[in-house]
């Protein structure tokens, strides 16, 4: 077999980039056609949850994957996005006794209602501002220290929400409705654009799915552009060597702050989508274990990889929503099948079919994670950079390339 020359390798890489582009288009088209073949409404509901998870994974991937900042409290920004939506588009805040209505905003005794499409930038901005607020004093810290500080923020935000309810001990008015949650959050207005008729108030999950899909696609495009920009390069440079990056003229704190703020912004989109779809927010959804779940999506998909974050979000959503239940039921059913066997196999079957696996889902989840990370430590769809990191060229390969370089040169002479 003739090994490809270094030039062919580069060409091959370029080709594969074209290939990737085609693959991306195919995936997007398939995603748009998916509701036509989805068997049931619950399938689409899971897909919509997956879209929110994808947004979260994409955002955290900027912080952890690109900029190399370990954030253990990322769910806090998700909470900010969701609660921003809840406060600005629900019956929660009653103001005065007269209702004022305009195109994008109405307020009165029935609460504040900001138009959903205006809320898209507002939720993202609110989350990003919190990212800056939390980041500014702490991003001078590095590695483990930063991780602990973000852990703290992840704890603080839900606690603050919990304690700003009615009759709170700090003497403030009821802002977040505390442990009572906020309910009655607005759905997006109905959309009638040519052949598109989306009604969000009914049980039809399709409009939600499409809305989420559009936000995901736009987010992916934005993040791809960011990654290949001057800013994206600075993030990676800081991750690789902070001191060298500073001496290349990169403002370390400022650049990290943009990673933190932008990462938070995407979870703002996620929070908006989640809050308006469920119609209710509950601060206990945003605790530490959910921060870790988002981190798992990023690592599972492949740190620093955009397709990886998308796949990681999908896998975790489906595991949470259906696969784990199916797996537990499958093991029980397998036991039922074994019961028909003789002697020892029968005993094993009885044991398996009787196992209370519904409560053991986290364990199955853990086993699956350990398995995937052992088989693919670089993640399911690793970025080129990360893959190279784990599989560096061998001395032999390099020597070969050297000799080829030499041949090419002498050939030119």
């Amino acid at each position, binding site marked *: 077999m003739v090994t490809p020359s*270094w030039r062919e390798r*580069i060409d091959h*890489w370029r080709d594969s980039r074209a290939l990737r582009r085609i693959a991306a288009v195919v995936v997007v088209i398939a995603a748009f056609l998916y509701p036509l073949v989805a068997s049931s409404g619950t399938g689409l509901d899971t897909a919509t949850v997956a879209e929110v998870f994808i947004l979260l994974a994409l955002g955290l991937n900027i912080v952890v994957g690109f900029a190399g900042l370990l954030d253990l409290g990322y769910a806090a920004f998700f909470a900010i996005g969701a609660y921003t939506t809840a406060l600005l588009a629900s019956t929660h805040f009653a103001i005065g006794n007269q209702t004022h209505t305009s195109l994008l905003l109405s307020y009165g005794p029935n609460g504040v209602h900001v138009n959903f499409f205006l809320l898209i930038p507002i939720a993202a901005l609110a989350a990003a501002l919190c990212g800056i607020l939390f980041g500014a004093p702490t991003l001078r810290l590095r590695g483990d220290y930063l991780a602990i500080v973000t852990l703290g923020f992840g704890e603080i935000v839900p606690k603050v929400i919990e304690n700003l309810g009615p009759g709170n001990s700090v003497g403030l008015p009821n802002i977040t409705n505390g442990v009572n949650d906020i309910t009655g959050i607005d759905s997006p207005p109905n959309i009638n654009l040519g052949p598109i008729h989306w009604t969000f108030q009914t049980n039809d999950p399709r409009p939600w799915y499409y809305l989420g899909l559009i936000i995901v696609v736009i987010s992916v495009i*934005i993040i791809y*552009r*960011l990654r290949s*920009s*001057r*800013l*994206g*390069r*600075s993030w*990676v*440079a800081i991750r*690789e*060597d902070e*001191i*060298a*990056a*500073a*001496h*290349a*003229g*990169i*403002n*370390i704190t400022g650049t990290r702050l*943009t990673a933190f703020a*932008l990462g938070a912004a995407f979870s703002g989109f996620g929070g908006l989508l989640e809050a308006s779809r469920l119609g209710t927010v509950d601060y206990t959804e945003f605790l530490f274990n959910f921060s870790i779940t988002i981190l798992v999506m990023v690592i599972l998909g492949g740190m620093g990889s955009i397709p990886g974050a998308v796949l990681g979000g999908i896998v975790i959503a489906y595991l949470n929503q259906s696969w784990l239940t199916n797996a537990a039921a499958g093991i029980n059913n397998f036991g039922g099948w074994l019961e028909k066997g003789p002697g020892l196999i029968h005993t094993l079957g009885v044991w398996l079919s009787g196992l209370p696996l519904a409560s053991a889902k986290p364990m199955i989840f853990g086993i699956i994670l350990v398995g995937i990370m052992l088989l693919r430590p670089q993640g399911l769809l690793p970025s080129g*950079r*990360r893959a*190279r*990191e784990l599989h*560096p*060229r061998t001395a032999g390969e*390099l020597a070969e390339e050297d000799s080829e*370089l030499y041949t090419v040169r002498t050939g030119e002479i």
Partner: protein
Amino acid sequence: MTENEDLVRVQGLTRRFGGLTAVDSLDFEVRAGEILSLIGPNGAGKTTVFNIISGIYPPTSGQILFKGENIAGLKPDRVQRKGISRTFQTLRLFANMSVLENVLVGYHSRLHSNLFGDIVKPPWVVKAEKEAVERSREVLGRLSPRLLSRQEFRASDLAYADRRLLELARALVSDPALLLLDEPTAGMNPTEAAEFMDHIRHIHADGFTILLIEHNLNVVMGVSHRIVVLDYGTKIAEGTPDEVRSNERVIEAYLGRKAASA
């Protein structure tokens, strides 16, 4: 700026670490267009001087006038933007970025963009980015065609001497008024070191002003216009290579009192 005008004027530079005075009221100047070497035995304070100039830490006291402006205490990225680039004694590359990306990062301060430009990519941003790539490739090619042909390689896959060259390219690409090179030939064999010194001469011929730290005395004598000798954080000699070579205090610092009197 005319020839021989002072580009950098270091005045009374002092840096203490706890009880240790690493640099003690040091004065020297770098003239535009020259290669000035900073030499001295281990622990003389050479790298400390570099770290203060490039902004890793502020001086305890003293001034660094660069083009007449005091830059002492500025952060590294600000110093770089003023026009001072550096390399490191222990290589500091972005190991998992490609060769080209490493050089592009060096061009960072020459590119201006904001979030809008990075996301929307209007024509002027695309054009600037393209120019950055061209300029980076030009610098790589000028230093070493071999490096240019490996622009897609991961930096850590390069041979050691090539990595040194890459670090130099990253510092050069922003067209700095002053280039700080901290022991660029450390860890090289004599052939590689000689080749690297040729590169430094070429860079100088292109009009760069260079401040060099070097351990290898043969290298220093061959390439420098002037030499500043440090020992225990103070300047013990200054002058042309010939002047420094015959200076008794220098011989004493390097070889001990006996050799000096012999």
